[in-house]
């Protein structure tokens, strides 16, 4: 990254030198070291986003930002429909509502370690993952539409988990005004056998131990205690979301010129929120978000069944469930005026600070839990949205580590068997159907998540609450 193009505003905040066409500033949150390694393309992409109509305040990049399609991964941008603001399929990404859900077991690491092989095997068999896997949830057209409207709340009504889970899911488990009819038949067809599946690539199911507490009071409010075990799931809206994204990116890219929007890159795929295409995408995207929320609710149920069987656990309370690829309608105060904005977070996590009315009462004084996944075999973090971060990327934080090496390079450099063995030496069990997949997801192919969360805290976005270390990792 060429630092001559940036002006340092604070320890972890950098402003991109403005260029012609940018309607708002481009701001990056990162340490100097992260910035040095950051992909140069991020700057071009931030510039392109800052040039879109109706953008409010700035186009932001999180500390884990890297080159994405249209918008950078780790990009945040908010648009005001009153000011001709756009909505963008490229600003959400191909895996709509990809996110992380964490469950607390209350078990000690010792209790879990004693039966680690058995637990890994049971989870691997209970949670369908990888190419060609099918879920055990039977769907037909009527159930599909009800699911797309009802999200995790629908899944609870079907017997997956309990209503108390919903308070701990972003937007209480269901996004209103979803439009199942805006989801094509092809997209629904892709989902018929995919409910209750994990997917592949960087998606995972991990059993983790709370290895370090950074903020005792918040950790305790979140129910996190050192040495206890949690289970985290990382996955999204599966085939349905991918198809919605593909179809609407094409439709938006084609329609953009009709609205006088010049796209520097087709992948920016943006149209006014208040247009036929914008409204159709909004309805379809919300349906895909509900699909992801329902899917994570079902997967959590499968995990709970395994823990019930092996440990006789009656409850695995939900810590939180939050997406990092989504566009949400949110109220934010801009220059003293409350405005309703469409906030795009792509590879970025909503991170409401303490006191936010959306948060459940027991969490409200501490700020929203932000779940940050590491790469396979490395730590994950639980953060909390910081007070005053509404002024910084409209309360957003990082989402993960971000790749530092391509899949092909990782495949040339590592062998799946070696990685499994190496992690086993560190007492981390990996279960996957694909050794090549493991090589491509090698821990060293990702940046350091520790550096990312540290910069996130120093930038005033979200503070570290706890560090989680993996015990078992199930991959597709």
């Amino acid at each position, binding site marked *: 990254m060429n630092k001559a193009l940036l002006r340092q505003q604070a320890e972890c905040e950098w402003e991109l030198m403005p260029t012609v066409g940018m309607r708002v500033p481009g701001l990056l949150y990162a340490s100097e070291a992260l910035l040095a390694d950051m*992909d140069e393309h991020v700057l071009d992409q931030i510039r392109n986003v800052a040039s879109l109509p109706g953008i409010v305040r700035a186009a932001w990049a999180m500390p884990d930002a*890297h*080159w*994405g*399609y*249209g918008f950078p*991964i780790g990009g945040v941008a908010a648009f005001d429909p009153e000011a001709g603001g756009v909505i963008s399929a490229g600003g959400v990404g*191909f*895996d709509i509502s990809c996110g992380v859900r964490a469950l607390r077991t209350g078990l000690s690491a010792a209790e879990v370690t004693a039966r680690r092989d058995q637990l890994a095997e049971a989870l691997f068999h209970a949670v369908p993952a*990888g*190419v*060609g896997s*099918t879920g055990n949830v039977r769907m037909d057209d009527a159930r599909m539409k009800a699911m797309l409207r009802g999200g995790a709340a629908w899944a609870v009504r079907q017997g997956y988990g309990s209503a108390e889970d919903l308070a701990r899911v972003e937007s209480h488990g269901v996004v209103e005004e979803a439009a199942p009819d805006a989801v094509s038949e*092809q997209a629904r*067809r*892709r989902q*018929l*056998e*995919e409910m209750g599946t994990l*997917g*592949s*690539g960087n998606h995972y199911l991990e059993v983790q131990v709370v290895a370090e507490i950074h903020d005792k009071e918040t950790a305790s409010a979140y129910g996190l205690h050192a040495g206890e075990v949690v289970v985290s799931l990382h996955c999204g809206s599966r*085939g349905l979301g*991918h*198809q919605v*994204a*593909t179809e609407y*990116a*094409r439709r938006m*890219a*084609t329609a953009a010129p009709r609205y006088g929007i010049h796209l520097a*890159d*087709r*992948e920016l795929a943006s149209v006014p929120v208040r247009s036929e295409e914008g409204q159709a995408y909004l309805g379809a995207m919300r349906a895909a978000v509900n699909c992801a929320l329902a899917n994570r609710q079902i997967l959590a149920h499968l995990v709970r069944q395994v823990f019930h069987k092996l440990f006789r656990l009656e409850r695995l309370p939900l810590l939180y469930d939050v997406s990092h690829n989504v566009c949400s309608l949110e109220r934010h105060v801009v220059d003293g005026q409350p405005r309703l904005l469409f906030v795009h977070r792509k590879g970025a996590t909503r991170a409401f600070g303490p006191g936010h009315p959306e948060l459940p009462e027991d969490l409200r004084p501490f700020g929203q839990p932000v779940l940050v996944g590491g790469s396979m075999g490395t730590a994950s973090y639980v953060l909390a949205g910081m007070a005053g971060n509404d002024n910084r990327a409209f309360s957003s934080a990082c989402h993960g580590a971000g*790749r530092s*090496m*391509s*899949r*092909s*390079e990782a495949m040339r450099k590592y062998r799946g068997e070696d990685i499994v063995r190496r992690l086993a030496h560190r007492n981390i069990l990996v279960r996957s*159907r*694909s*050794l*090549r*997949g493991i090589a*491509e997801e090698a821990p060293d192919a990702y940046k350091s998540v520790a550096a990312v969360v540290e910069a996130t805290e120093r930038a005033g976005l979200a503070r570290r609450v706890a560090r989680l270390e993996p015990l078992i990792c199930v991959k*597709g």
Partner: protein
Amino acid sequence: MSGPRWEHFEHLSDIGIRGWGRTIGEAFEQAALAMTAVVTEPGGVSAREMVSVECQADDRAQLLADWLNAWICEMSARRMLFGRYEVQVAGGQLKGRAWGELVDVRRHRPTVEIKAATYALLAVRQEPTGEWMAQAVLDV
């Protein structure tokens, strides 16, 4: 010219695919094979079932994206892998077929699901040698 062939190319987060052929159609077929090779060894997929697709677009690059996305959709919805592709391209339209079978995890050892073919580095062009080249980046 060295005949129809394909390769993968580097992309930081995802993976690039490239196909060459004497015609646009051949280049599209090779690009699709390169896509299969992201998931599994194409030679290991038996031709048990034939599936057809049709696409229409205003430009060649979009047609390539549509062609690849049509197969991504079929792979995902049918839980199939395809080892051989055939396509006729005429102007902005194509009619294609592919032969494959249901995913067999033990035999195919599939690596990763493909989410979509993107617009990044998407290109269809005739090389100075007269060969056609079709390339795309897949989101996995």
